[in-house]
């Protein structure tokens, strides 16, 4: 075991894993995090907490993950190259270890332009591939980026992200391979709506043999309303929402229920795609729906290892 995290155990045991995202508040309220944990803690194997997602200041991932750990839940700390240089990032990795956080997810971070401080300077001292490598070297070589020794263990399960819908499409698998080579243990993807395109990408991934080196968790974002679907199609870069999905929601009497059914169909389809080892559910601002979706998808109860 690299980290002994629940997520790692579930994946290594060959179960279909479920991670769920928790959005932190714009306050220092531990209670908000705890309430999410209480509500959906039984419905996934590990819980990502976003870190200033879309460039909006919120309670940081490190602290929120520590709160989840206190509750006995497995947490995935998200780290961004946008907001910190290599010194801060490596220090936060040690902080995560100190607080018994066992999974990290390494991202570049959305551009500050989309956030609530668009005038901020993006750091990008290192990029996400390099951050993955840095965590791996801290864990496996006990070395900081500078080469100095880390005076202790860094048992972390290392995650990265990939967007199968972004361009250049033919470079996406090569980029994933780079993250795997850098040291990623698991990958959480951008939201899957266009299943055929995702399947094509997964075929490439399997052809390259990457499915045997890394656990791929397909991104799932439940759609609550027609407006949300339209918004995602128009404004969320690299998310492809097929028109027929929007038409289907528009024609529905109970939009929420139709949205859930649609998501369940997507989950069912991705579960059948070779190489997919789990799903990552990002119910942005709608965390409470996760148990119902998991129940109806036949993914509850979660395995206890």
């Amino acid at each position, binding site marked *: 075991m690299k980290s002994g995290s629940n997520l790692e155990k579930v994946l290594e045991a060959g179960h279909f894993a479920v991670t769920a995202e928790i959005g932190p508040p714009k306050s220092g309220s531990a209670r908000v995090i705890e309430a999410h944990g209480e509500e959906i803690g039984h419905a996934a194997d590990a819980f990502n907490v976003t870190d200033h997602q879309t460039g909006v200041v919120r309670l940081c991932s490190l602290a929120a993950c520590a709160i989840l750990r206190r509750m006995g839940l497995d947490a995935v700390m998200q780290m961004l190259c946008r907001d910190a240089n290599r010194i801060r990032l490596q220090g936060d990795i040690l902080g995560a270890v100190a607080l018994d956080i066992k999974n990290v997810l390494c991202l570049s971070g959305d551009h500050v332009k989309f956030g609530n401080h668009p005038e901020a300077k993006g750091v*990008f001292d290192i990029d*996400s591939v*390099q951050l993955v490598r840095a965590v791996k070297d801290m864990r496996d070589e006990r070395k900081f980026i500078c080469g100095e020794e880390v005076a202790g263990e860094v048992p972390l399960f290392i995650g990265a992200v990939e967007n199968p819908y972004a*361009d250049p499409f033919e470079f996406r698998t090569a980029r994933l391979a*780079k993250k795997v080579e850098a040291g990623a243990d698991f990958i959480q993807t951008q939201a899957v709506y266009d299943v055929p395109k995702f399947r094509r990408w997964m075929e490439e991934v399997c052809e390259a043999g990457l499915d045997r080196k890394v656990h791929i968790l397909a991104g799932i974002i439940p759609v609550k309303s027609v407006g949300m679907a339209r918004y995602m199609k128009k404004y969320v870069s690299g998310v492809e929402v097929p028109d027929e999905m929007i038409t289907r929601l528009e024609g529905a009497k109970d939009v929420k229920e139709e949205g859930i059914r649609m998501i369940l169909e997507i989950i069912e389809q991705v579960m059948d795609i070779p190489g997919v080892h789990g799903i990552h559910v990002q119910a942005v601002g709608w965390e409470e729906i996760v148990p119902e979706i998991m129940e109806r998808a036949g993914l509850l109860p979660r395995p206890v290892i």
Partner: protein
Amino acid sequence: MKSITQRKGIEEIEAMLGSARRVAIAGCGTCPFMAGTGGPKEVVELARTLEERSVERAWSTVLPVACEPLAPEAQKEFSSLLEGAEAVLVAACSLGVRMVADQVVLPVLPALNTLFIGREAEPGFFVEECAQCGDCVLGEYGGICPIVHCAKGLFNGPCGGSVGGKCEVDPNLPCGWQLIYDRMKALGRAEELARIRPYKDWSKSLSGGARRMRVPVPPPKEPEGK
């Protein structure tokens, strides 16, 4: 090299001028002339605008190359031009502002913002090409700099926001990584992009105070006939 500049808003210029009523304006005959920000036409226009709006008197000149020291004759001429001025507005890039500031004991203020070092990709269209990072990586990326052309300055490939060849930051902005990928593919070198690029050494860049460099200077020529 071209220093690409843009004129500051008139309100900002007036705020910098403060109580100065008599203002000399110095343009520059090289890059700002080409960018239409500090040539003869622009400095005259700026003087007129200021006189119409706020100052008592504004007059102007255009230095041939504002970032180079003035020859002794030109220096004299420039000094006499500044007589009676309470402030000097320099319509040149930051180098020009600094050069003028070194030569006069008056408030020297920038009329322009220095945007970037760029090239004129097509007539009248300037594109940034260099972040002056001190450790050129163009050789690895088919001549396209990822620090400048990627909005996040990523070294190992495009982020998830590259769609249809455009950057998520601005639908009119080409994705730098699409440019790099296309170029490397055309060169038959796309596979090189699969290599993990190691951490960048930023110590050669903007983090150690003003960078300085000395080069050997040839001694002045002996006067002929001796």
